């Protein structure tokens, strides 16, 4: 924003360097102390609610342990992982999850970009209406969205078959159509978020570049590819990363619509089913660790592979 009027972090940062070595001024020292006093509790709680559980999960994943049979708890090294990785159920769930992630993120990127363009260019009389409208799916509970789509397509109450004249076609009777509805619900609910991120990116594309390209006779498409998109690459990448990680964790829509039937299980749902429904703590923990590792892998690929600079995208530095 108004970076010219306030150099927020830069000014104090140079301060300790200019001071003689080892002689932090009282002011700098008390600032450090205050900094950790203020940020410490939030930091500690974040660690407590994530680092501790994942370590615990890893520990429990090394045991053959079923809650209904606590006496037969035994340490089995990595055999739970071996069981999972050699079972087609895991690979099926992973395939479904990756499929959902790729499809929803791709559709959302295109749709979200179109929405962002509309909001960016829209005449002032429609802009607030559009912005309010797209925030509504964002604010709707995922479970409610899942119910809306499920009731719309299912055989007892669905209006879709009536409208399309499909009679008793069962959308949830087969893997692909069921997954398509799950993706629709996911896309409907989360496209607004991605479009807002892209809109913020669009706003950063310098208008002069657009004008210059226009003067040089570039078509609308050329300007989109050569000017707009390269200049908002950071925003696109951040939006993609966050949506991909979010989509990979898909659970609510699947739970409500199919409960994982007809091979529509995602990895999160599989882990839930093992732990909460079957009380297989060992296997469930191993699955949790694997889901976590997948998420880490996606994040690393994005950050290293596509060079997403989250720090600069987050306004740090």
């Amino acid at each position: 924003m108004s970076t010219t009027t306030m150099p927020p972090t830069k000014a104090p940062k140079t301060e300790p360097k200019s001071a003689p070595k080892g002689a932090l001024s009282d002011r700098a020292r008390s600032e450090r102390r205050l900094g950790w006093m203020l940020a410490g509790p939030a930091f500690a709680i974040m660690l407590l609610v994530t680092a501790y559980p994942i370590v615990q999960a890893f520990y429990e994943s090394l045991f053959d342990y079923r809650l209904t049979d606590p006496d037969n708890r035994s340490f089995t090294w990595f055999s739970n992982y071996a069981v999972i990785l050699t079972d087609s159920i895991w690979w099926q769930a992973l395939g479904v999850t990756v499929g959902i992630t790729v499809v929803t993120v791709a559709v959302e990127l295109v749709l979200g970009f179109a929405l962002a363009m509309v909001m960016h260019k829209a005449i002032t009389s429609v802009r607030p209406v559009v912005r309010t409208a797209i925030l509504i799916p964002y604010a709707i509970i995922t479970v409610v969205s899942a119910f809306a789509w499920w009731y719309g397509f299912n055989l007892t109450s669905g209006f879709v078959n009536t409208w399309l004249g499909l009679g008793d076609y069962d959308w949830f009777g087969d893997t692909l159509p069921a997954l398509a509805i799950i993706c629709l619900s996911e896309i409907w609910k989360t496209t607004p978020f991605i479009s807002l991120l892209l809109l913020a990116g669009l706003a950063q594309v310098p208008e002069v570049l657009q004008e210059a390209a226009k003067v040089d006779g570039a078509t609308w498409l050329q300007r989109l590819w050569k000017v707009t998109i390269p200049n908002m690459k950071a925003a696109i990448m951040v939006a993609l990363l966050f949506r991909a990680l979010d989509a990979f964790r898909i659970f609510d829509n699947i739970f409500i619509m199919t409960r994982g039937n007809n091979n529509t299980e995602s990895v999160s749902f599989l882990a839930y089913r093992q732990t909460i429904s079957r009380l297989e703590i060992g296997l469930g923990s191993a699955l949790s660790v694997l889901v976590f590792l997948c998420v880490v892998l996606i994040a690393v690929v994005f950050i290293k592979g596509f060079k997403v600079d989250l720090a600069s995208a987050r306004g740090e530095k």
Partner: protein
Amino acid sequence: MMGAMSTRERVLWYLGALAIVLYALFPVAWIISLSFKSQGDLTDRNFLPRNPSWGNYETIFSGSARDLFLPALRNSLGICLIATFVSVVLAMFAAYAIARLDFPGKRLILSTALVVAIFPAISIVTPLFNLWRGIGLYDTWPGLIIPYLSLTLPISIWTLAAFFREIPWEMEQAAQVDGATSWQAFRKVIVPLAAPGVFTTAIISFFIAWNDFIYGISLTSTEASRPVPAALAFFTGASQFEEPTGAITAAAVVVTIPVVVLVLLFQRRIVAGLTNGAVKG
């Protein structure tokens, strides 16, 4: 902004806007329509109710689904408000330190917030399920509030840090020149300036907690703490031959209205909050 605009262009904009509004509202309209259908119409597979009635709302507020819905509504409100409050207060202090003070470990805190935000909930659910049973937090409010912090705290920290960076800090320095301590400068000068950002952060945090399903369904077992999204999955019809569709959709509408109202009232701020924290050049 574009000067003279042809009527054709104007009409196109209105049509485009109409399409987007339809896109956003259609599923919502459908679930509202379902909630007003009488029991006999619920399976007629038409979009609109033939004989609109309040019957389903009676079911959830005074009828058979009452004991399932009302406690869930109370749990959701209580748990989400407490989780939001705790995380916004903690994030406020942290974001102030990040935006304003110079201390080692600042980047560590921001990176931690990032990692926590992308953490898969299911990886927290499994160990907590076992742990909570052991220490008596299973099916209690704190048993949900604690994991909810993993959802609300990171986004609160970013959003607030972004808001706090835009505050004119000269005013704080001026207060310090006038003899105020860092703490006084924070309380007397910055808090009033930061209030809108804090409020927006609270709304976004609340949305996220309100939306949770995976913790709600895994770490609770009774009305003692089960929140609304999880309770919706447990609704049953008045008899085993009756679908709970009416009760579920009515309950869904009831929990959707407050968030839609919040969106309508504070849309400009919510957009700023969502995008400030995420993309800023």
